């Protein structure tokens, strides 16, 4: 063997242990789950039924549409608010903005269960908001608990800081000189934003959006404590399938479906990152 080939073979040998661990712990369970999703629970033979169930049963379709609605709303609001927050932190230099810059990540450090209960205590029909309104003679019942509104609000608690973190990192790479240069030739603030800042930072926005999307599709804690009975979020539907009904093949099918949904957003991410705009080349 040539020296070159020997070195390559040796390289592969070194990587082998880590590779095997990843194959065993990650790839093998995924493949078994995919295989299980095509298995008929009674005969053990090949079947499309597990997938057909989730696309033909009206309640399961409602769950799917509902989950996508909640997640897309979360992504949209989180990105818009996070972007505005990031712009504020980047371009406004004042004691307040510095203080916010140090504090905005704190919500993420609160354990999720504690945060959910805190939110529930405030927005439930007998919660803080309701009791404050009662002291003014009213009886304001927000009706957010057990509905999409409450879950979206709770998701924003965790996702706005995270998205803002990623977008701030992206905005930091835009040098002040670029902004100043544009302003020097007479561009308005809006023009500076659309033609300079946005194109330079949109990749980070897509990354943030992808992460927010993927982490919320399979969310469990928030929907379990704050969600309603029907339609359910997919995370809860999955939990029911394998824990309550003990239908493991259907659970496998649903997890593959959720995986495919996430991979669509991942594909969008990869596409935007691969394609270099003309001015980037």
């Amino acid at each position, binding site marked *: 063997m040539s020296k070159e080939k020997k070195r390559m073979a040796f390289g592969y040998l070194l990587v082998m242990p*880590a590779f095997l661990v990843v194959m065993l712990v990650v790839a093998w369970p995924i493949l078994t789950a995919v295989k299980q999703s095509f298995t008929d629970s009674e005969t053990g033979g090949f079947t499309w039924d597990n997938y057909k169930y989730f696309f033909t049963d009206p309640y399961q379709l409602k769950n799917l549409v509902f989950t996508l609605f909640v997640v897309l709303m979360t992504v949209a609001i989180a990105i818009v608010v996070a972007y505005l927050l990031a712009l504020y932190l980047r371009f406004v230099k004042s004691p307040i903005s510095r203080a916010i810059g140090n504090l905005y990540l704190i919500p993420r450090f609160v354990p999720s269960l504690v945060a959910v209960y805190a939110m529930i205590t405030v927005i439930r029909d007998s919660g803080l908001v309701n009791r404050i309104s009662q002291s003014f003679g009213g009886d304001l*019942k927000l009706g957010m608990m057990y*509905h999409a509104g409450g879950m979206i609000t709770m998701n924003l608690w965790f996702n706005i800081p995270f998205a803002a973190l990623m977008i701030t990192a992206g905005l930091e790479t835009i040098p002040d000189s670029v902004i100043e240069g544009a302003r020097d030739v007479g561009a308005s603030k809006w023009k500076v934003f659309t033609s300079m800042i946005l194109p330079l930072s949109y990749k980070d926005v897509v990354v943030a959006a992808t992460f927010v999307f993927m982490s919320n599709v399979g969310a469990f804690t928030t929907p379990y404590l704050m969600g309603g009975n*029907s339609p359910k979020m997919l995370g809860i539907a999955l939990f029911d399938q394998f824990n309550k009904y003990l239908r493991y093949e259907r659970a496998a099918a649903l997890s593959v479906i959720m995986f495919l949904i996430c991979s669509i957003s991942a594909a969008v991410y990869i596409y935007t990152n691969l394609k270099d705009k003309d001015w980037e080349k």
Partner: protein
Amino acid sequence: MKRFLATVLALVMALSLAACGSKSAGSSSAASGSAAASSGEKTTVNLWATGSDNVREIYETLTSNFNKTSDQYEVKLNFMLSGTGTQTMVDMLSAAYKAKQTNTEYDLVDFSGDDWSKIVSLIGQDAFTKLDTSKLPNASSVTAKCAVSPEYSQPYRGTTVILAYNSAKVATPPTTMDELISWIKANPGRFAYNTPGTGGAGDSFVRTTVYNFISDESAMVSDDTKWEAQWDQGFKLLAELHPYMYKSGGSVVYPNKNQGALDLLSQGEIDMCPMWADMVLSQRNAGTIPDTIKVTSITPSFTGAVQSLSIPSFGSNSEGAYAFMNYMLSDEAQDTLVKQMAAIPLVSTANIDMTGYEDLKSLDVSKFRILSIGDLSNDFNERWDNEISTLG
């Protein structure tokens, strides 16, 4: 030198992979260790239990109290949190028995009524030691019996689902199921039960509602699928009651988990709900729910069961198991059970200080309706999810 080092590292990594796989061989040697008894040395009794966190806490108290006073045995608690593990414990035991293992670590097992009948149907009562009452002097005062294979399992506490209500809003609670239904219809939005499958209280309510329509009482302890056809009337009633349930934001809501329903009751959003007696009483005594929350039973009652201890025949320390079982039936242990988790004691309450837990005296274990429908409960929950929760 670098290449040599790199090769050695790679080999070490590969070998450590192989070593991970052989760890399981080590655990079987532990069981044989516990059987060794030399004078003055304590032998280990492995106790297995599942339940909510309050069960874990009570067992930790009871085992540490027992270990302090016993000079022969050391009880080790193996606890699995319910909701995820209960299925596993029954599976673990039946797998061990079917694999014809002997001298295992399963010395003493705590079963709920449901799990006990499930394991007996899976591996038969002979997988367990027939209880020698001469080794259980404290058991003579216990009149309660397990519904299934009573000579193989010793009950030590009772649990039951009762009707919890806010006495400030409800002056006279209903005493029968029919009165409860009329109350629900007369007070829309003031009653809730948790989603079946997330907590035993809601499970008990919906299952008794359905099984009340089945005149053959043996159906309540049967897992024969033929009974599913007779669920229709009960489900019709549940669908009928649906619009009168607790609402939030314009639609009916069934909270998740027992605690979800109890939270609604203690916050005043509802006035009545089915709930575990021990949850209401222990939280009321701890001050986390208001004193106005009271409990009552109705006829026909919700379900109740006895929690029991059994000794698998394939364990390795039956003498120690008997010793701990006997301790569990002592006045001291029963008192701890009452005080720490508001469990229903099964010995005479004359010797136990029941202040704060007087409600427990009114719960008669002999009148409990046992419900044990095995795998049918999965079908039941699925049917409820498809038919009732989707009513919107």
